[in-house]
């Protein structure tokens, strides 16, 4: 099941989200539990193909708990209630911890190494090692918690203080952005004789970014495209 969990999202769709993937990962447990009962196995497979969603790294919590419930002979209603209860929180928790926390933090650490002049392979290796240490630990931990605590996972997740962890990562990420901004500017203006106008422009750019946040991304992309068009027209006409 653990190895199968690495492909849980392969059949992601807008109707059942990772429902089919959930059933795929759970299948070895279902085959064992319902051995010799093909109709019960087919029913179980169909039940678990229904709508479900979770962050892929934390899906092990639900998978482990459901495998335990099925093995203990819980009714389909009980299993379904449990899945409905956890799916929202496992998704949100994982998104906040990993996509909005750990991953950008690791990327910023790698960018820091890159802009500090490390050989180009070092930021890549450091990023992959750092990120995937957290990633694999989370996967393994989530299966362990799910299998061990069953329907008691909610209390276990609360005790794990994951929100404290998320707050710490967010603070570290904000620090990294602050650290990276002057260092990347330094890289650009290195060796320039008349760097002051550019320094001022880049300082203004940082202020604009802080003011408008992530919403600045699309206008900046469009502005770059417009700059490219102007640069090409200038070159073509001169």
């Amino acid at each position, binding site marked *: 099941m653990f190895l199968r969990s*690495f*492909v849980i999202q*392969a059949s992601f*769709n807008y*109707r059942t989200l990772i429902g*089919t993937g959930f*059933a*795929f990962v759970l299948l070895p447990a279902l*085959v064992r539990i319902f051995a010799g009962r093909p109709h019960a*196995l087919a029913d179980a*497979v169909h039940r678990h193909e229904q709508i479900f969603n979770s962050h*892929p*790294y934390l899906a092990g919590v639900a998978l482990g708990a459901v495998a335990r419930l099925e093995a203990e002979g819980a009714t389909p209603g009980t299993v379904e209630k449990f899945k409905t209860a956890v799916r929202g929180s496992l998704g949100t928790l994982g*998104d906040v911890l990993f996509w909005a926390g750990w991953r*950008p933090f690791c*990327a*910023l650490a790698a960018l820091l190494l890159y802009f500090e002049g490390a050989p*180009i392979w070092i*930021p890549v290796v450091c*990023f*992959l090692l750092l990120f*995937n240490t957290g*990633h694999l630990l989370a996967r393994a931990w989530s299966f362990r918690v799910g299998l061990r605590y069953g329907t008691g996972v909610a209390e276990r997740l609360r005790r794990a203080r994951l929100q404290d962890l998320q707050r710490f990562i*967010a*603070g570290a*990420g*904000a*620090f*990294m*952005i*602050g*650290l*990276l*901004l*002057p*260092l*990347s500017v*330094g890289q*650009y203006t290195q060796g*320039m004789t008349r760097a002051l106008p*550019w320094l001022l*422009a*880049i300082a203004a*750019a*940082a202020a*604009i*970014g*802080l003011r*408008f*946040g*992530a919403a600045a*991304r699309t206008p*900046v*992309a469009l502005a*770059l*495209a417009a700059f490219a068009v102007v*640069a*090409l027209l200038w070159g073509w*006409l*001169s």
Partner: protein
Amino acid sequence: MSWVIVALLGGIVGLDATSVAQIMISRPLVVGTLAGFLLGVPVQGALLGALFEIFHLSILPIGAARYPEAGTATVAATAALSAAPAATHGSAGLLLALVFALGWERVAGMSVSLFRRNVERVLFAPERRPAHRELVRRHVIALSLDALRGVIVCLVGAGAGTLLLRAAAPFWGVEAVVTLGALAIASTIVLAGALTIFGGWTTQYRVFLLGALCGTLLLVLR
């Protein structure tokens, strides 16, 4: 440029983005460096990857949201950079490749939505085998289709990007320092804007300013 390498990378990053493992080899910094190394433009690929990574810090693949896809766009843009004449590997080529990547990521993202809608036809077709065998078969088919999607997006993107760079780069009429300045300004805005994902200025200004102070000190002491 080797189309085989582009196709192979396309399949791998297409899968890593969502379907398989998600060990982040599809991140722009990683795949830009890797693609650059394999296609003969390691420095340019790494720089393109680093800049595009900054643009993707604040893209969050949450739930069933539609979002631009970074990995395949990075491979396509790096391939285009490698196929362009060597004279265009400087700042002009880099900016054009980045602009192309920022456009192609939308196409790649649309391909993901299209793939997810169409995979439903495979998943919810009438069953012809026992449920557990059908489940495995359909899951594997979905995985294979996602790999194919990645290959197609990368190959078509590499072709389109190559045409763009070859046609446009010779006409670049702006000095390298100004071009790099535009890239620095753009990436600074987006990098600063990424503070939003960690809570934004109101929540994190103390920590952010502490980081900025440390960064400035490091710069001054160098």
